[in-house]
């Protein structure tokens, strides 16, 4: 036995001797009536929802700030009524928030949302913003709001909770949702509140909370708002619930760049990946730190990206070499039988593991004599869409990879 092995043996015995049981037989009996599996997916959704609502509120606050045009700041000055439907209408389809709305072409500008509500410090990033040119700014956003609540809170209470956060809606009207007037949006019953130079409407549809606001300097603001709302088409199935990839990382080791959501979760590789001598197995993906040689990004949203590359030895069959050395702990599908994927113009392969609470998507591609492996560890139902969005930002730069 080596010194290390003896040291380990002694250490493990010492730690084991210090272990003390906390429970007893009666606790087992009591536990039988209390035992229930943990719904991790629900936890994730609640985290997402909280973040999103924070973002919504902040964005709405920004809307208000923008909408308080000079006329609105002067309490006596309001713009004469101009119905928005006097101009030809154009339909805007939100790229992230799962709705469409029509707006008058004349003088209006639209800024689509680029981020999850609450994800960015720039609150407005989560909102689709329509500058109407009519002394009014219309904004819309949405976030996940699963049915039911473990705490038994009503929908109104849950919405109020989200919108009460200063980061979500710092200048909200503050009227409890249960006391707000009713409004119908795309056939769904919602609520609306009005305060100085501002309207706020919320509606829940398809497991999502929608928030529409308008800041204005108009005497007929409610009529203008209603005109916009009448054109809204809620499309919760089209909403995107993963964050926008807004920061670019250029790997100093692996010869690629990609965009990622920056929340402090970037962990660049500190060594070169050597799959032949340090072969990956299934457990490496559960290990901390990351497998050696991988650039990693923890999104904090049930998704962890890992990426690495390595020179391909001369004379090997790519599919066989990948099967033996790269994906030996993979999803079990030989590379030659995997689906195709295009990464930065190069034809690659992709496989998806669907273990409960431990999903994994792996894509491999060859460029410039290097084998690239891009992996997403996740517990998200929309993981493939998230992975595809990430892959679309990848720029392969084999010439820039570090040399052993």
């Amino acid at each position, binding site marked *: 036995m080596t010194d290390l092995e003896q040291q380990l043996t002694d250490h493990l*015995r010492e730690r084991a001797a210090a272990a003390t*049981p906390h429970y007893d037989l009666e606790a*087992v*009996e009591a536990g039988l009536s209390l035992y229930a599996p943990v719904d991790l997916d629900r936890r994730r959704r609640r985290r997402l929802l909280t973040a999103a609502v924070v973002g919504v509120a902040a964005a709405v606050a920004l809307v208000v700030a923008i909408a308080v045009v000079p006329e609105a700041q002067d309490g006596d000055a309001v713009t004469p009524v101009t119905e928005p439907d006097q101009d030809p209408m154009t339909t805007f389809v939100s790229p992230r928030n799962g709705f469409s709305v029509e707006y008058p072409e004349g003088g209006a500008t639209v800024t689509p949302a680029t981020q999850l509500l609450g994800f960015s410090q720039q609150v407005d990033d989560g909102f689709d913003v329509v500058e109407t040119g009519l002394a009014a700014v219309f904004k819309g956003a949405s976030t996940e709001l699963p049915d039911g609540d473990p705490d038994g809170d009503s929908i109104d209470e849950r919405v109020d909770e989200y919108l009460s956060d200063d980061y979500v809606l710092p200048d909200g009207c503050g009227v409890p949702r249960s006391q707000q007037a009713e409004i119908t949006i795309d056939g769904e019953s919602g609520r609306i509140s009005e305060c100085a130079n501002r309207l706020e409407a919320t509606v829940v549809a398809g497991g999502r909370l929608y928030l529409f606001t308008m800041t204005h300097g108009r005497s007929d603001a409610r009529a203008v708002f209603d005109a916009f709302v009448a054109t809204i088409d809620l499309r919760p199935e089209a909403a995107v619930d993963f964050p926008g990839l807004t920061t670019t990382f250029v790997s100093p080791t692996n010869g690629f760049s990609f965009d990622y959501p920056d929340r402090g979760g970037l962990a660049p590789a500190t060594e070169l990946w050597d799959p032949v001598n340090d072969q990956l197995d299934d457990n490496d993906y559960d290990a*901390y730190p990351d497998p050696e040689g991988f650039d*990693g990004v923890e999104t904090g949203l049930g998704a*962890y990206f890992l990426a690495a590359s390595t020179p391909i030895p001369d004379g090997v069959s790519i599919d066989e070499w990948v099967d033996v050395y790269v994906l030996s702990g993979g999803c079990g599908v030989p590379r030659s039988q995997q689906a195709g994927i295009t990464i930065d113009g190069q034809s690659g392969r992709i496989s998806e593991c669907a273990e409960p609470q431990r999903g994994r998507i792996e894509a491999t591609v060859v460029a410039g004599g290097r084998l690239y492996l891009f992996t997403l*560890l996740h517990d998200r139902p929309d993981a493939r869409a998230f992975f595809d969005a990430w892959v679309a930002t990848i720029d392969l730069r084999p010439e820039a990879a570090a040399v052993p």
Partner: protein
Amino acid sequence: MVMEEVHSTVGRLDGVAFGDFYRSELDGQVRRAVLLLGSNDLANDVVHDAFIEVYRRWDTLDEPGPYLHVAVLNRCRGVHRQRSRHLRLLPRLIDRDSPASVGEHLDDLLAELPFNQRAAVVLRFYAGLTTAEIAGELGCAPGSVGPWINRALAKMRKALQ
């Protein structure tokens, strides 16, 4: 009604009451789980849940001992998996240069191992199991055990240098 009364009437297995089984296994299972997880609290929760599962199936289990072993191991694996992902962000918060005892250093190194490597090390150097026995516990091929232990030791040696 206390547990022993319940199992004195309905929970017998080859003449062994669940209460006797519980008492004979509890300390050893908690010790092993502590070594696999590095946390007394987590280990107790894991073992407790595993005992509940055994209790629920007591009348149908031919061999509750091995079943309990696997249940504890699988729960440790699940906890390790969830915790590992959280730990990925911790290095930003930890001062790696701060002094630590040899024991703490070994704890850190064990915590950084993939679960199967850690389990193989614990079962070999604490429980003294053979390669075949470790493979049986972990549900893997015997040929996997040696490489796991060797890789774990290599990583630890490298870190200790």
